[in-house]
């Protein structure tokens, strides 16, 4: 019995060796894939779907009256691990709010730290430039980012969803995501 098994094994090995079977299988796979749909996208023409809550370039939120929500408490600057936020205040308002984008590591801690919901990370990830000054974000640029990338309801929704933690994180909210069973 054992003998026949080894003989069969050896025959199998010999057949494998001389028919290039595994190489032919691989080649069949690549040939098959040649006629399948490409998974890549043509970037500047097509863009990938960006999930809501994407951590991109910063923006300063505005309230309904169109004024900056930021009061300049400095918590974002305090939590920032790379120390890229600089704030000065004068005459009862925020005078300077600057984000050194090139230092920023996009951890999103500033959004989490802000108790006022004044700073957000937008979906903009294309901001390369030839000059450093153009990338250095000043207050007016940050405010215009809000109009540009968080128009209408989008800004409010952002705070509803991604301005963490909310009290539901400490409890069991209704409609929490759970496994709903295998789909047949």
């Amino acid at each position, binding site marked *: 019995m054992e003998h026949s098994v080894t003989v069969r094994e050896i025959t199998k090995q010999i057949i494998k060796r001389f028919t290039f079977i595994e190489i032919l299988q*691989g080649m069949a*796979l690549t040939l098959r*894939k040649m*006629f399948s749909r490409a998974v*890549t996208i043509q970037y500047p023409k097509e863009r990938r779907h960006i999930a809501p809550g994407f951590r991109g370039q910063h923006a300063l939120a505005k309230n309904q009256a169109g004024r900056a929500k930021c009061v300049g408490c400095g918590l974002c600057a305090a939590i920032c691990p790379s120390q890229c936020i600089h704030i000065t205040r004068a005459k009862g308002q925020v005078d300077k709010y600057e984000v050194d984008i090139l230092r920023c590591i996009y951890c999103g801690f500033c959004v989490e730290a802000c108790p006022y919901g004044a700073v957000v990370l937008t979906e903009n990830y294309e901001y390369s430039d030839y000059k450093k000054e153009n990338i250095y974000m000043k207050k007016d640029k940050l405010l215009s980012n809000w109009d540009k990338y968080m128009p209408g309801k989008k800004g409010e929704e952002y705070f509803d969803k991604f301005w963490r933690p909310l009290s539901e994180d400490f409890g069991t909210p209704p409609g929490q995501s759970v496994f709903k069973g295998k789909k047949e």
Partner: protein
Amino acid sequence: MDINNIISPQLLDAFIKFGINVLVIILKIVVVLAIGLLHVAYATYFERKVIGHMQVRLGPMRVGPHGLLQPFADGLKLFFKEDIVPANADKVVFYIAPIIFMAASMVNLSVIPFSYGFTIADFTISPVIADINIGLLFIFAMAGMGVYGIFISGWASNSKYAFLGGLRSAAQVISYEIAMGLSLVGVMIMAGSLNLTDIVRAQEESVFGMFAIPQIVGFIIFTIAAVAETNRTPFDMPEAESELVAGYFTEYSGFRFALFFLGEYIAMIIMASMATICFLGGWTLPWYITQVVPFINYVPGIVWFLMKVYACIFFYYWIRATLPRYRYDQVMGIGWKILIPVALANILITGLVKIIMTMYGA
């Protein structure tokens, strides 16, 4: 003054004939070079597209519709790129090496026939620049010359990566040339000639229609050796990008790099043509196809020739997309320990069969 006083009419006729012949040859060279280079340009595009699609992506898409103008964009880029010569390079040799490599591959185009000759007025034009009787040997000789280009480029760069690439290449190309030569001896025995046109004719007249069937072993050995000879995956030791960065042309840039690049693709086309001519029946179709579908005879032979060549080139790309890379010692082992003995055995058997056939058959 009478022209007849200076030169006799017969001599003039001969002179004119000679002149036209020279013109035809020059014309042929121009046509073959132009078309050849165009094919090379599109062979790169074809490669990128084929491999791209096999890897579930698209390949070049940006220049022109579906990236059709990509080869020209690449060429322009390489042409205008800064030509960097390493400070410690052996300058003269460094400059010569790509030229040798390129020339050695290009010269091969001259002996490749694309079709049977045809007659216009009095002139028989054979679609081959030099219809020489030792066509096959000539190609081997030139392929051997190409190694010099590779090796001295590796040496002259004065870079260790290039040097290692050059060494590997010299060893590999020389070993596989033997296997390739031996694999073709069977074909020579069967055709009884070294002239490439004659080899095709012999296949057309043979029972099998193409030598790939009776010479299956030789064909497989030739295919493997041709892949190794042109330094392509899975035998791309000399330029193994993940080991030697780019091998012997690591230090080359701009147009000199383009010469190497062109030379490599021309060598690939030559090898594909060789396979087509020696094993796949060249521009002819086997009788069992032409008999069944007679109208296929109206298609010019060159179409079949190009289709077969591109099928071979596609095969090159296909295995490149599928297989990993061998190690240097394993490549040499396959060449010397497997391919050469098998090729020798193939010669022996082919010779014996031929003797028996001539003794009893004819």
